[in-house]
């Protein structure tokens, strides 16, 4: 190849790479971007601030979710909400890195309020994906998160007390006895056989039960 052609090729490559660089710079004008379920404005602001300061997407996600945990968004995030049948609050959280496809998560974590930070610790410091229950709590505390802490609040205990007064209704049990009061519950199948309860009626009970259980302030 003649020197003149080489020079032309060089100029072409430099121009091309420059254009690619410009294109990327234009694209980056639309970032950072934060999208979140529900109008949790302060959580989105926290994630945005982190991303806008140049933190990674994972760090920004953790900042956003942490803000919601601290603020107890809608009572559905963080400590002090959604008591279980025993009145206890537990935390589920997950973080996923879309670059590496790494995931860290905790489920039914007791006594530790920092769910998303615990999830990130699972992702960063283990080769696992999901830790659950008291073992997740022990892991989180051993990795430096504060705890053990009682995750109940005055509000969650009041909701739980009211629910107990209302004979533990509604609840997530099906095909058990007793139906209209608190447990302990036992399977109803053996009774159905003797009483000849029709299968269709049982099916109705199953399909009717869900919509009353999940709502704007009670969801995953």
């Amino acid at each position: 190849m003649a020197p003149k052609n080489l020079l032309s090729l060089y100029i072409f490559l430099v121009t091309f790479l420059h254009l690619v660089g410009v294109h990327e710079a234009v694209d980056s004008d639309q970032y950072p971007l934060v999208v979140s379920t529900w109008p949790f404005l302060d959580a989105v602001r926290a994630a945005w601030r982190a991303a806008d300061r140049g933190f990674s997407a994972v760090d920004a996600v953790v900042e956003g979710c942490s803000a919601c945990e601290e603020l107890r968004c809608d009572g559905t995030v963080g400590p002090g909400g959604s008591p279980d049948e025993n009145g206890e609050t537990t935390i589920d959280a997950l973080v996923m890195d879309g670059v590496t496809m790494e995931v860290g998560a905790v489920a039914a974590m007791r006594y530790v309020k920092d769910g998303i930070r615990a999830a990130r610790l699972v992702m960063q410091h283990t080769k696992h994906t999901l830790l659950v229950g008291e073992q997740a709590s022990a892991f989180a505390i051993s990795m430096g998160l504060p705890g053990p802490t009682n995750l109940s609040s005055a509000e969650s205990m009041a909701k739980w007390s009211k629910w107990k007064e209302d004979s533990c209704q509604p609840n997530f049990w099906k095909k058990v006895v007793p139906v209209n009061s608190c447990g302990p519950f036992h399977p109803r199948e053996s009774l159905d056989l003797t009483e000849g309860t029709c299968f269709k009626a049982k099916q109705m009970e199953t399909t009717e039960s869900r919509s009353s259980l999940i709502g704007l302030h009670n969801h995953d």
Partner: protein
Amino acid sequence: TIAVAVVDKMGHIAVGTSTNGAMFKIPGRVGDGPIAGSSAYADDEIGACGATGDGDIMMRFLPWHARLPAILPCTFMASYQVVESMRLGMEPQLAAKDAISRIARKFPDFVGAVFAVNKNGVHAGACHGWTFQYSVRSPEMDDVEVLTVLP
């Protein structure tokens, strides 16, 4: 529940969720919150999805079933499905609606919602059983904007 997706200045994507689950759940119950692909999913090359709602239902749609459609048809994982639909060329709005409608076909009483966002920053939401709102903040906005999605 909060599900958050962030595209950072490098264009890298991550998602996260945090929840204290369903009220008056049976002790030990875990919903879809900590399940990757159900409550949230992200792929840097495509985009991300976040979900909220009845986690007992949402986590029943398993991704390994989706990989074996001839053996176990009609099963998928909501957030995973949204991202995979976008990978196949669907716009976020169609991908979100498709995922929700697949669940609603099997569970008409289902209450839930998803948001989808692609790598170009296009976002959308879809819901069933309730009115859903999601929040967005991008460089052209002065503050967070809330969008309402009707079922």
